[in-house]
């Protein structure tokens, strides 16, 4: 995973290496200090310091008025967050993981996302829904869902899915300051991952992709933790003489088509890497969009590496088969470049 760090375009002076969970905590803490209206609600966020320790110490610092342990009632506390946002607060609603956002998804898609248009701008809903998306190790079928595309599909929502500690902090701060409802995706497997983060305050803008590795032969497009296996794939492809550029989208909605198209227009080949099934996925949409918009730039169809079309089995012997892998990425790149 060191690649990610080496290639983190954002790495700069006065930096420390911190874990993603701490980058997230710093983002929330700084914004809560800055703005009284910001508060955090979710299961285990307070006394337990967060199921993944992303809010460690925040209860002590801000008290139970602003760091609120919620019962298991996602529709209830998501809905309360939405109402609070409509009334002028700026809630951060943590889903222990986005697997559990499904029992609250009606509130997010039908209330938060639509409230501004339905009221012709009378209502604003500045709220952040955050938590981990995707699979971890052997959590079984119900705890390995990727749902970021359900949210990215929905007009009215902003969807952010960063990978590195630097991007996590900078984008979470921007999300909290954004006046639209934002779904912010993290990854269980990378909360402990370290990377350079400046000591001074900074923001990463929503809607800007980032080139995490320069290359000339093929553009690899990805987001979230899959960035790291994609960078590893780029590394091994380099040994085969294939120079891969890696575009980290960071934001899924709005999509930074400029950075994406420029890269593909340069390499003329593209492979999307996603931890999603293929049908009606975000990656398939990218494949279509690139083809539709810059067809003449393409020397080959856009490749796609996805989760296989089955619910996630528990056994590690099967999980590795279902999930995208460095090897499958390399195969698809060879197929596209061959």
């Amino acid at each position: 995973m060191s690649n990610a760090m080496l290639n983190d375009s954002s790495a700069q002076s006065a930096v420390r290496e911190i874990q993603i969970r701490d980058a997230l905590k710093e983002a929330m803490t700084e914004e809560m200090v800055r703005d009284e209206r910001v508060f955090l609600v979710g299961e285990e966020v307070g006394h337990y310091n967060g199921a993944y320790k992303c809010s460690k110490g925040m209860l002590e610092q801000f008290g139970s008025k602003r760091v609120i342990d919620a019962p298991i009632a996602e529709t209830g506390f998501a809905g309360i967050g939405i109402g609070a946002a409509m009334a002028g607060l700026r809630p951060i609603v943590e889903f222990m993981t986005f697997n559990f956002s499904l029992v609250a998804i009606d509130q997010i898609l039908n209330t938060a996302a639509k409230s501004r248009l339905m009221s012709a701008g009378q209502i604003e809903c500045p709220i952040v829904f955050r938590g981990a998306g995707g699979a971890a190790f052997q959590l079984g079928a119900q705890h390995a869902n990727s749902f970021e595309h359900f949210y990215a599909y929905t007009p009215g929502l902003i969807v952010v899915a960063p990978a590195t500690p630097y991007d996590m902090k900078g984008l979470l701060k921007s999300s909290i300051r954004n006046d639209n409802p934002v779904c912010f995706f993290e990854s269980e497997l990378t909360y402990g991952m370290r990377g350079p983060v400046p000591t001074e305050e900074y923001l990463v803008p929503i809607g800007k992709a980032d080139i995490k590795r320069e290359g000339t032969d093929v553009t690899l497009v990805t987001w979230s933790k899959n960035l790291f296996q994609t960078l590893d794939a780029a590394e091994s492809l380099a040994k085969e003489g294939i120079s891969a550029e890696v575009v980290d989208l960071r934001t899924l909605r709005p999509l930074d088509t400029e950075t994406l198209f420029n890269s593909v227009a340069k390499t003329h080949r593209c492979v999307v890497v996603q931890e999603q099934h293929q049908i009606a996925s975000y990656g398939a949409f990218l494949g279509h969009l690139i083809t539709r918009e810059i067809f003449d730039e393409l020397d080959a169809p856009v490749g796609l590496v996805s989760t296989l079309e089955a619910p996630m089995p528990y056994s590690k012997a099967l999980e590795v088969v279902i999930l995208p892998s460095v090897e499958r990425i390399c195969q698809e790149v060879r197929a596209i470049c061959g």
Partner: protein
Amino acid sequence: MEHEVLTDLFAKMLRIRRFEEEAARLYTEKKIGGFLHLYIGQEAVAVGTISVLKDTDYIMTGYRCHGHYLARGGSARAGMAELMGKETGCAKGRGGSMHFFDVERRFMGGWGIVGGQVPVAAGLAFAEKYKGEDNIAVCYLGDGAINIGAFHEGLALSALWGIPAVFIIENNQYAMGTPLERTASTDDLSIRALAYPMARETVDGHDIYAVRATMHAAAKRAREQQLPTLIEAKTYRYRGHSMADPGKYRTAADVDVWKSRDPIKVLGETMDAQGMKDLRMRIENEIEEEIQDAVRFAEDSPFPAPETAMDYTYV
């Protein structure tokens, strides 16, 4: 004083009644599209409850929302224009009949997913408590909404967190074509509140004074003790579920039982008996003018420009 209240309540209820009778007519003339759910028969609930609230209290309801909007003082012109999908509507034609908004008056809308507004309304109250304001939120829902998860979660969290909200079940006896006995396993809907440390009340929704008294007490509990209340107001809708529903599942006689106690009729008679017949007729004329003006205003208003179709999606 007592006279003023009586007059005011009569006028507010009649205003809703006439607004919707005109809306029904315009719907049959195809000047209004989509679903049109009339509040006719239930006016005493919205008018009675809202009449004892502060201007800074929040109100949220379901898709049967014209009555609450108007009771809160929403403009008849903007309401009628909204029904016709005009740019001058209370949601600039974006919301429609089910989704009236008047955020300036803290009327936070009409919402279409049954029960979905319950936790959201609790969130409005949560915010006021967070800010240290002594405003409350009042949430209206139908008898059909008591079985859905969002209702339970909203109430459970309101009780747990001491959220200053009042939840009012407008039990108009039917969820679409379904009479209560087929959906609720009890005819006392307020028992749903027994599952939580929360107050509960049952009130005759046709008795506007009883409605006011019940709401006043519940608002006080919410405001002063952060204790939420679940109120069941027993009422009746005279029309079908929506304009599309002929209401075959009940007889005219069933409806007449309630019409005979119609709160507008009752208050009108009281005014006459108290020697305010002239005043009543003047009010009726004023309201008639306001409604007809609203219809003309709506008809003369422009539709939103096509190029604005995607406006208001993002800040």
